[in-house]
């Protein structure tokens, strides 16, 4: 496997990026750039659409055509781009609040249509850009600025949602495993149809601080433990005696979890 230098794929004039120190989103962005290179995609024909939130801000630094759209609506914008110009490779960067709360409707319908998009959903269990509010993916019991006594709602399983909605490629990966990310992104980008990759990422600034999970380095290690193969529940990690003990998450399955061939929606008479 050749080593890919990603700097030519960055808008160096815009760097450094706005994300916090230790936020793993950049690791994901880097792996994505490697994958576009490995997949042999012409940068002139690569479009990355994003919603609103920390992860979505990343696209501004990628030297492709980048469309920083509105909160949750990136799949809709991407649908327009792809249908209007099918020869373009179109990807979506979305966060967990962006993609699963305000934009859930657009996500499931893009999956249902099996339109040829690659959606990367950064799951850091929190709204980072707005200051650490609870997200649809926040584990039960976890602290957020709007769940000061611990989250009482169950978390979304985006992979199950996407398989149910009809996505023809569904994977989950972790920012703590960049080489696996590179491989899965390459497969997702070359998959014909709707490809969905949930990436477990982190937010040291809010989720890490509220839940006493440490900074960037510690949270990377914590991410590794979300993997069902090595799952160590959040509860075991937390040392917060005065707070309710969170329900132990079951650990998440990682890897390419679903793959099928089915007709791709093009909106045109000739598929």
């Amino acid at each position, binding site marked *: 496997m050749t080593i890919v230098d990603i700097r030519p794929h960055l808008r160096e004039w815009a760097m450094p990026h706005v994300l916090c120190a230790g936020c793993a989103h950049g690791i994901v962005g880097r792996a994505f750039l490697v994958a576009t290179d490995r997949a042999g995609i012409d940068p002139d024909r690569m479009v990355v659409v994003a919603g609103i939130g920390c992860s979505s801000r990343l696209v501004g630094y990628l030297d492709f055509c980048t469309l920083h759209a509105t909160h949750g609506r990136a799949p809709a914008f991407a649908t*327009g781009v792809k249908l209007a110009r099918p020869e373009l490779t179109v990807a979506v960067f979305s966060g967990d609040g962006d993609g699963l709360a305000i934009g859930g409707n657009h996500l499931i319908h893009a999956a249902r249509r099996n339109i040829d998009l690659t959606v990367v959903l950064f799951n850091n269990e929190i709204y980072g850009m707005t200051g650490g509010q609870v997200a649809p993916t926040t584990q039960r019991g976890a602290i957020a600025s709007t769940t000061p006594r611990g989250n009482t709602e169950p978390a979304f399983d985006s992979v199950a949602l996407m398989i149910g909605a009809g996505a023809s490629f569904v994977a989950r990966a972790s920012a703590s495993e960049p080489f696996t990310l590179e491989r899965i992104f390459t497969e997702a980008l070359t998959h014909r149809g709707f490809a969905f990759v949930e990436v477990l990422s982190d937010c040291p600034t809010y989720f890490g601080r509220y839940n006493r999970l440490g900074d960037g380095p510690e949270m990377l290690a914590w991410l590794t433990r979300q993997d069902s193969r090595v799952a160590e529940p959040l509860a075991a990690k937390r040392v917060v005696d005065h707070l309710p003990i969170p329900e132990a998450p079951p650990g998440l399955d990682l890897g390419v979890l679903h793959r099928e061939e089915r007709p791709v929606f093009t909106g045109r008479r000739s598929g």
Partner: protein
Amino acid sequence: MKQSRLIQGNEACALGAVAAGCRFYAGYPITPSSEIAEYMARHLPEEDGVFVQMEDEISSLGAVIGASFAGARAMTATSGPGFSLMQEHIGYAVMAEAPCVIVDVMRAGPSTGRPTSPSQGDVMAARWGTHGDHPAIVLTPASVTEIFELTVRAFELAETLRMPVIVLYDEVLGHTRETVELPPRVEIAGRRTPRVAPTEFRPKEAGPDGVPPLPAFGDGYRFHVTGLTHDERGFPTDEAEVAGRLIRRLHAKVEAHRDDIVEVETLLCDDADIVIFAFGIVARAAKEAVMVARAQGLRVGLLRPRTIWPFPDREVAKITAGASVVLVAEMNLGQVVREVERAVAGNARVEGLFRADGEAIDPEEILQALAPDLEGAAR
């Protein structure tokens, strides 16, 4: 070759779009605009275009904007409740400068209201519905033929000025059938593309007319688009000076083309003592009222804006300069009347005839409203 045929207003809208080169339509079913989508679904594929029915109106306009950046002339159509949902992306299209056309076939509101009844209650929503300081171009056709013409015109303005343009008419017009002669194709000016090399390209650097050139995604220009306030590189900025420059330019580009954008039609206004100001379907009733009044020797004229936003204030001031009364008839509880008052600036008495019950204003109502003033007009 023009063809004479009997068609519905909504169909004329779709025909106008296709004739203007629209090759992308995304929409969501809603009465009374659905015929536009149905026509597009039938005919766009024949033109190698794309029709897609989206999951809601928010995504419909989102997809339209995406298609627009991919180089397509793109539109959507809706009605009141859907128009509310589209406000988010109307603002985005303004900020990101995405050429696109939005058709609002007005029905009685607020909320779900009377889906099958007409209204002109969205005229301020079309101007101010989305948040923030933004310009607006809104065209108000008054006949089936004019729906075709102004839809074509909307595409030309959207493409050349890089912004959303709204075509605003009501349920009655949308469902009115008239005999029309329409050309299958209309050549319009399109968007300007950059003349500099990709490495030199600054996506939000405008020429003297305030409109930046716009390449399509995939044409070799790799650029960033955002709804955040941004600089000339298209990149987000927090500098007040840069932010102010952007927002002022968005308005200035419309102002610079204002005289080209604003169109009004007058009927017998030269000697009129009473000028009726009406747009859309109400202008049809007003025209009838003018003819009845003139038959009685009364000096009544009609001022009908084909462009409601930017508001034709200079035209209103000039045309009503010799009048003593201006009657504003609109199917709402008084939205445009204030704009007319502002334009008339006290030089004439401005009266309003308002109706918001989902029924159209008829000529008799207008004549009744004029009755107290007709004596003066008879002199």
